[in-house]
């Protein structure tokens, strides 16, 4: 644990806090992207180069943009009016605090975390690719099927229904 790791961790936590606490939804999405970037830096500092780059590509690049699209499509671009939190916010916050406290206490007391051995360096991209194509080829194919199903499902769910009052007006024929 060095200074850079500490700074990256603080940036990640700050982005996460901003993404759940801010009023403007676009600012929340940008805070989420900051948290993702901090996590990508942490992965790189842990020696997992490929995962760090995938984090940048998939999370910051794709998921963040999808969130911003959804915020703009639901007209959430401005600030939220009224109360920011749900009516049962005290119960929810209490549950979250209790869960965090129990987990933190458990891991601070755990004696099995004193692992001296640190992996020297992660596998190269070539080794990751060979591993994906040899040992993990069936999970990879299942994942391809899942992503296809998810893409088709997302399009069908978000497609405007016929006669829907919320659908955009159809252009006149001819």
């Amino acid at each position: 644990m060095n200074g850079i790791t500490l700074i990256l961790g603080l940036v990640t936590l700050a982005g996460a806090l901003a993404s759940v606490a801010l009023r403007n939804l676009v600012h929340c999405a940008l805070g989420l992207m900051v948290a993702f970037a901090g996590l990508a830096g942490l992965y790189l500092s842990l020696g997992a180069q490929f995962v760090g780059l995938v984090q940048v590509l998939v999370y910051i690049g794709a998921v963040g943009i999808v969130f911003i699209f959804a915020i703009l499509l639901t007209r959430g671009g401005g600030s939220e009016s009224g109360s920011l939190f749900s009516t049962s916010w005290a119960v929810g916050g209490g549950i979250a605090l209790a869960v965090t406290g129990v987990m933190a206490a458990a891991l601070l007391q755990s004696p099995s975390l004193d692992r001296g051995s640190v992996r020297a360096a992660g596998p190269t991209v070539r080794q990751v690719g060979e591993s994906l194509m040899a040992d993990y080829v069936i999970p990879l194919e299942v994942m391809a099927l899942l992503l296809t199903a998810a893409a088709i499902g997302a399009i069908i769910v978000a497609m405007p229904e016929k006669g829907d009052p919320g659908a955009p007006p159809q252009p006149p024929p001819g």
Partner: protein
Amino acid sequence: MNELSFFLLLSTLLFGIGLAGVLVRRNAILVLVSVELMLNAANLNFIAFWRHGAGGESAGLMFVLFSIAVAAAEAAVGLALVIAVYRRFRTAHLDRVDTLKG
């Protein structure tokens, strides 16, 4: 504090922030943002344990790669559902989407 404990504590805090967001925020998109934070906390745990020798040569990395793919699919489907709900109710606030309320 050793490095592994530091990363596990960081991941716990990230998970706690995400859990608080899921339980407390009213906007459905913010709830999905918080779910993404919790998934990322789990990914950080995988990488931290992998770094400190748990699992085989690259098992932790593979778990994280597949987890990222599943999370991307979840985000796409979840946001499509939010858009469908918005079209039906003209709002994405969970307190007002209460047709099934008893």
